[in-house]
C-alpha cells in the first residue's frame, strides 16, 4: 500500500468517525466544530477525485460561510431553548425514534441498491471516455475549463441559481428592515 492510498483511507475514516460524532455528541457547539473536521476531510477526498476546485470551494463556502453562520445562529439564540434542546432522552430505543430509524434504514437501502446497480467499474460512458483518452490528468488546470463551461453550456442553471440567491438576499433585507410606522 503506498502513501496515497493510506492517506485516502485515513481521510475516509476521519470523515465517517467525525460525522458519527456530530450525530451522537450531546454538546451542540462541539458538534458544529466536529462538523468542520468532517467537511475538511471531505474536501481532502474531493482532491483524490481530482476535483481540487470543488475541494477549495467546499472550504470557502462551508467552513468560511455556513459553519460560521451556524455558530452565529447558535450564539445569538436563547440559552433556555438551547438547554432544552440539549436535554436528551437517554434511552437507546424509544417510540419517538421510530420514524427516524425507519427513514435512516430505508435511505441506507436505497443507497446500497444504487451503488450495487450502478456497477461503477463497467459503466458505458466511462469506458468510452477512457478509450477516447478523454480523461483528466492530475496536473491539468481545470479552472479555465470550468469557467468556459459555466458561461456556455451551463449558463441557464448558473443564472437561475444567481436569481435564487438574489431573491433570498432581498427577502432577508426586507425581513431585517425596521417598519417605519412604528416610530411615528
Amino acid at each position: 500500500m503506498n502513501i496515497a492510498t493510506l492517506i485516502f483511507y485515513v481521510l475516509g475514516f476521519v470523515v465517517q468517525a467525525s460525522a458519527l460524532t456530530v450525530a451522537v455528541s450531546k454538546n451542540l457547539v462541539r458538534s458544529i466544530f466536529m462538523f468542520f473536521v468532517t467537511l475538511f476531510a471531505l474536501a481532502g477526498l474531493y482532491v483524490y477525485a481530482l476535483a481540487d476546485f470543488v475541494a477549495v470551494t467546499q472550504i470557502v463556502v462551508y467552513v468560511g460561510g455556513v459553519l460560521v453562520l451556524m455558530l452565529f445562529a447558535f450564539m445569538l439564540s436563547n440559552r433556555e431553548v438551547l438547554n432544552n434542546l440539549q436535554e436528551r432522552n437517554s434511552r437507546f430505543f424509544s417510540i419517538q425514534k421510530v420514524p427516524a430509524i425507519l427513514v435512516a434504514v430505508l435511505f441506507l437501502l436505497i443507497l446500497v441498491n444504487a451503488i450495487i446497480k450502478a456497477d461503477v467499474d463497467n459503466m458505458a460512458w466511462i469506458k468510452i471516455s477512457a478509450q477516447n483518452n478523454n480523461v483528466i490528468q492530475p496536473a491539468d488546470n481545470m479552472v479555465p475549463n470550468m469557467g468556459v463551461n459555466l458561461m456556455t453550456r451551463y449558463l441557464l442553471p448558473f443564472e437561475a441559481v444567481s436569481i435564487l440567491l438574489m431573491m433570498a438576499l432581498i427577502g432577508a433585507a426586507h425581513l431585517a428592515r425596521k417598519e417605519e410606522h412604528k416610530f411615528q
Partner: protein
Amino acid sequence: MQPKQNYLNFYLIYIAVGLGLFGFSAVFALFGVYAERKVSAFIQDRLGPTETGKFGLLQTVADIVKLLQKELITPAAADKLLFALAPFIIFIAVYLGFAVMPWGPGLVPVSLNLGLFYFFAIVSIETLGILMAGWGSNNKYSMLGAMRSVAQVISYEIPAGFALISVVMIAQTLDLQQIATQQGILSTETTKFLGFLDVSHIGGILSWNIFRAPHLMVAFVIYFIASLAECNRAPFDIPEAESELVAGFHTEYTGLRFGFVFLAEYSMMFLVSMLGVILFLGAWNTPLPNIGVVQLANWTTGWGWGILWVSVKALALVGVQMWIRWTLPRFRVDQLMDLCWKVLTPLAFACMVISGLWRLLLM
C-alpha cells in the same frame, strides 16, 4: 532502492521547507513585536525597549522565554478541549497560507494552479478558530470579541475578494507564481505599461500590476484596508478594543497558547502584506528597470534577489500597517460597516468592471 530514496528526498524537502517557514514566522513575530514597540515609541515620542541587549534588541526574546515558562491556566468554566485547540487552529490556518506564496523565480513551496483561491479558503478557517476561542473561554468579553471579529472579517472579505478578482481578471490565472512572473522581465507574454507602452524587456517598476493597469492602485488600497480589518489591527481593532473588552477573544489565554495567538497575528500581518506585494507590487521582481545598456533589471533578477525584494516590499507594507495602527484612532462598529459596505464594496465592484473592459480593450 533508487526510487524509494527519491521519495524520501522528496518528503524531506517538503518537511524542511515547512520547518523553514515555521522558523521564519517565529523569528518574524519576535522582531515584528520589537519593531512595533519601537515604531509606537517613535510615534509617541518615547524610547521603547532599551535595556535588554543593544537597543533593546533582546527584549522580545526575553519576553518569549518568560511566556514559555508561564503556567497554562484553563478557566474552570471553559470548554477545555475547544479552549486548548483554538490557538493552534488559528495559527495553523495562517501558517498553511504560506504554502502557495512564491519567494523567487522557481522558488515556491507548492505551485498550485488554484493558489489564490486556496489562500482565500485556508485563511477563512482562522475565523472558525477565533469563534472557537471565544466560545471555549466562556467569558463574555471573549465571546463579544470573537463575534465582533468574525462579523468584521466576513464583511471585509467581500471588498478584498473583489479587489483580488480584478487582479485575476488582468492576470488570467490563479497561480500566484504565474501572477508573479508576469510582472517582470521573465514574463513570456508582452507586458504593457498603462496599456500602451511595451515594457516586456524593460521590466522594473513599470511592469508591476498597479502600473500595467492603473485602476489596480485603487484595488490595492481597497485590499490593503480590508487586510488591516482581517488582521484585526487598528483602526479596525474593535474585536480586542482594550477600553471595552479587556483583550477580546484571547482574554483568557496564558503562556504558550497566548504565544500562538500572537504568532498567528504577526504571521497574518506578514502574509497579507506578502499577498498584496505578489498581486499588486511586482512580487519578487526588481523595482529597477533596464535603461539602455544599464541592464539593472537583468542584474537584479534571480532567486536570491527575489527573496530580498519580496521581503523588503512585504516588510515595508508591514511598516505601513504599524504606522497606521499608531496614528489612527479606532473605528466605531457602525463606521466600520459603513466604510465596508457603502464605500469599499462599490469601489471594488467598479474596479472589477474596469478590469474586464481593460482586458478586452487594451490587452
